[in-house]
């Protein structure tokens, strides 16, 4: 069933949904803000101009919200959407900032020129921007957080994490990861989270520093590689392997987790919790 909300200056429409359905939003320009509630319904609020319309389409498995332009590309229209917290979200836009609050299901966000700011998410959470920063907070599951030209941050989240950007820093705080990859080309990497027994942690940057906060009692085999950088530690480490060129490793505790720290030309540092050099103080640097 298609509802065309063409000529109204202000849209405020609510449609009922059923468990099992997912929300698809496709925008071009303008913000998408998604909030959660516990009703089994989706509410859309927007103020399109007369050149743009907002289409809401309900089919069997999804509710789709789309902005369409009458002539040419859609104009800027901000969408405020309230959806059930259980509902999987699939949002895409071009010149679109996306923010999500309170979601408790899988999330997928793709934008080109816009920031992504998500609190929540459970299951597969995949956030991607080209020109904007990406921030994820309070999520669990398989977390994929990607930017190209800006910073990426993940906080208070758990699961398997892959945080990547090209030209920006990657900051992970209060993260409880069973496996983690943090990667940049031109940016620093900071981690302040748990180092789980049996976990695997890979930090790789080309031109940037790596700062790892190591909690008390961590058990990890740490392998450090750098071409043109330095290694420093706030606590003593014993080398188990002699320096072979520019890679060496050492053991913390039982050596259970595997941690790989690679910076082509930047410093690699291990700090104690609470250190002023740690990732939690990253923005203050």
């Amino acid at each position, binding site marked *: 069933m298609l509802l065309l909300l063409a000529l109204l200056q202000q849209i405020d429409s609510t449609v009922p949904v059923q468990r099992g359905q997912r929300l698809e939003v496709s925008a071009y320009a303008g913000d998408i803000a998604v909030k959660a509630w516990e009703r089994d319904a989706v509410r859309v609020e927007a103020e399109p101009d007369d050149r743009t319309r907002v289409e809401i389409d309900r089919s069997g498995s999804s509710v789709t919200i789309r902005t369409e332009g009458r002539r040419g590309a859609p104009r800027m229209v901000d969408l405020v959407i309230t959806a059930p917290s259980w509902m999987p979200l699939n949002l895409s836009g*071009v*010149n679109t900032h996306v923010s999500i609050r309170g979601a408790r299901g899988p999330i997928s966000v793709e934008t*080109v*020129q816009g920031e992504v700011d998500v609190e929540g998410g459970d299951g597969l959470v995949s956030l991607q921007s*080209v*020109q904007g920063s990406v921030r994820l907070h309070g999520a669990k599951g398989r977390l994929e957080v990607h930017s*190209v*030209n800006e910073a990426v941050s993940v906080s208070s989240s758990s699961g398997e994490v892959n945080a990547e950007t*090209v*030209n920006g820093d990657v900051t992970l705080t209060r993260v409880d990861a069973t*496996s983690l*990859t943090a*990667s940049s*080309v*031109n940016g620093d990497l900071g981690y302040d989270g748990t180092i789980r027994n049996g976990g*695997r942690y*890979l930090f*790789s940057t*080309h*031109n940037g520093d790596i700062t790892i906060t190591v909690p008390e009692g961590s058990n990890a085999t740490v*392998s450090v*590689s750098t*071409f*043109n950088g330095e290694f420093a530690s706030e606590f003593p480490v014993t080398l188990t392997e002699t320096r072979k*060129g*520019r*890679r060496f490793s050492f053991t913390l505790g039982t050596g259970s987790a*595997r941690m*790989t720290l*690679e910076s*082509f*030309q930047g410093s690699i540092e291990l700090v104690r919790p609470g250190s002023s050099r740690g990732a939690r103080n990253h923005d203050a640097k």
Partner: protein
Amino acid sequence: MSDQWTERLSEYLDGDLTESERAALEAHLASCAACAETLAGLRRVLVRARSLEDRPPVRDLWSGIATRIGAGSRQRRFTFSMPQLLAAGIALALLSAGGAWLLHPGSNQVATEAAPLPLARAPIATVAAGAGVRGYDAAVEDLERVLAEGRGRLDTTTVRVLEQNLALIDRAIAQAQRAVAADSANVYLNSHLAETMRRKIDLLRQAAALVSAVS
């Protein structure tokens, strides 16, 4: 002082005479002081010619060149040059999940297997024995073509950001390649180079997907 022998002294100096001509000339030189003296004089000219020193211009010409090539403004579209790097004979590592292979210059053979990496990384190319990095080259070329044909459909700031980041990755690749060239058995450097190449392919794919989406 022009005798038939003098005319051939230069060719003699340059080794352009046949065996018999050379023998005849050397026999003549043994008995002709004038020719021997001329030969010595020609040798001195050669020595001075070869030791001429190059010196740069009195005034620095760079700013004129920079203006003419439009340095500072991005006029050139990206041209990537993996073939150049390969031609320079650089050892290259290719990753597939769980293992690393090292290709050494001058051979298409899979050489040694290094320590497996802690986490699987997505393969960047399908490497058949002997195929070298052709899979990577071809992928880069295809993606560049898609991007070149379609970039007019993208916003100019998006194009600029993509180009800047592709150039950033290229610089990283070049630095990694230089490091590998100086230390070709270093596992980290090889894997870092390969990983950075993967980042480039990934970004090209992402850019190409953007172009396709806006058509």
